[in-house]
């Protein structure tokens, strides 16, 4: 358990003059569920995009399984799955083609087998087989997230990223997604990194919680430690108070 799956040191990323990540240090242990919380626009999405190589950091080190991601010649994406903030389903493909994108693309699986596999995973995330032939545009937001989840876990990744998996969903659907995240991560034994500002979700799925503020991780600990922490920034965030050290820029 002590082994680090992801190791981030001194990560910097700016867009023009806007400094978004300002020296982030973060370790994600193998098999744990780490949740990163933080206000809107603090760079949470930027952080996971850097880890996945979707954005190139200005400086700093990101290691996965002890290997620097920018230097490795292996395809780091094969180890990782990602559920995007807006699901990011391909709207030119049907639901099952979305879910089976990787197996289909590799050509190792026949179309028929790929579809069977896609339907099996869709069932795992609680979707009926008749959804398979619909187009993503015909689905509700919650269903799209489930399809996105199915697409992320079909490859059995070692690391799964969830970018605000519950935003925009009603509380019950949000909880269903929470359960799915816990189940699918446990089922695969995967390491997960979740971004959220939904505290109920964070409490439910996190082994540890980290708070991102002004481009740095200012606090990290278990859920229990969080409740008892006297860090004023953290307290303000989890109680959702407009008064406190965190100034909202309007």
């Amino acid at each position, binding site marked *: 358990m002590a082994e680090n799956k992801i190791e981030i040191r001194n990560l910097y990323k700016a867009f023009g003059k806007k400094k978004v990540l300002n020296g982030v240090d973060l370790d994600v242990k193998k098999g744990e569920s780490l949740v990163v919380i933080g206000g809107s626009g603090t760079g949470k999405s930027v952080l996971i995009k850097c880890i996945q*190589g979707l954005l190139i950091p200005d400086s700093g080190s990101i290691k996965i399984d002890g290997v620097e991601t920018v230097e490795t010649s292996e395809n780091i994406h094969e180890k990782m799955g990602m559920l995007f903030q807006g699901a*990011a*389903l391909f709207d030119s493909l049907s639901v099952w083609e979305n879910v089976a994108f990787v197996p289909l693309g590799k050509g190792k699986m026949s179309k028929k087998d790929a579809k069977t596999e896609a339907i099996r995973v869709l069932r795992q995330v609680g979707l009926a087989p008749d959804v398979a032939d619909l187009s993503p545009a015909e689905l509700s937001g919650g269903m799209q997230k489930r399809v996105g989840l199915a697409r992320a876990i079909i490859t059995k990744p070692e690391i799964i990223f969830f970018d605000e998996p519950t935003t925009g969903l009603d509380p019950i659907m949000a909880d269903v997604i929470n359960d799915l995240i816990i189940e699918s991560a446990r089922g695969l034994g995967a390491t997960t990194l979740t971004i959220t500002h939904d505290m109920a979700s964070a409490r439910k799925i996190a082994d540890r919680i980290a708070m991102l503020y002004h481009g740095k991780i200012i606090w990290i600990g278990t859920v229990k430690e969080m409740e008892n922490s006297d860090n004023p920034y953290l307290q303000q965030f989890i109680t959702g108070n407009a008064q406190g050290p965190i100034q909202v820029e309007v």
Partner: protein
Amino acid sequence: MLKKTLGTFLQTLGKAPLAFIINLGYFTQFVAKSVYNCFMPPFYFRLFGMQFLNIGFYSLPVVGLTTLFAGMVIAIQTYSGISEYGAESVVASVVLISVTRELAPVLSALMVAGRIGAAMAAEIGTMRVTEQIDALITLSANPFRYLIAPRIWAAIIVMPLLVLFGDIIGIFGGYLVGVYKLDFNPANYITNTMDFMKSTDIIMGMVKAGVFGFIISVMGCYHGYRSKGGAQGVGEATTNAVVTASILILIANYLITELFFAR
């Protein structure tokens, strides 16, 4: 020190040219990357086929209509501009040469730029702003091979075929006007057309078309790929794709023409 001096120097120069130079850098890089990935496996034949059908088959009506009227108008203009004597052979040859060398390639390309360049920018732009391009990468698919290469190949291959079709329709437009409006002898018109027909003209037109196909697809993909900021950004990308492609088509047309015909 040097950086600072350079910074102030560039600042005094003004931001617009600087932005242009930066964009030129991005653009060159984008084109190089696109071309490189056009030759790297995996090749997505199904996506290529879809683009081929979309660019080629569905552009037939628009290309047919434009070249038909272009051929017709050239026939009338030529006739009204010359003396009666020998009009029959002059009209046929002018229609033939102007359609195959210039009108069919350029007009078809401009029409396709409006239709396809815009669609490519909108489609890829939407995929960009809804993170579908990021999703492709996380699913180990290279967007340059999955999205851009099939579009470039399809455009380069289908444009010459469209122009060949435009040639035929344009010449036919001239024939219609010649025979039904100017009372030329149909058999003579056809013989005259055949006499002046040169395979180099037709092939040059098709080579131009291939270049225009490259321009249209690259501009569509580039503006789509770099769009940001939601629906408005995609709208801007669409407009920019069409405008830049059209301008580049006209410039490239001049350069190619000068290279091959100005002797």
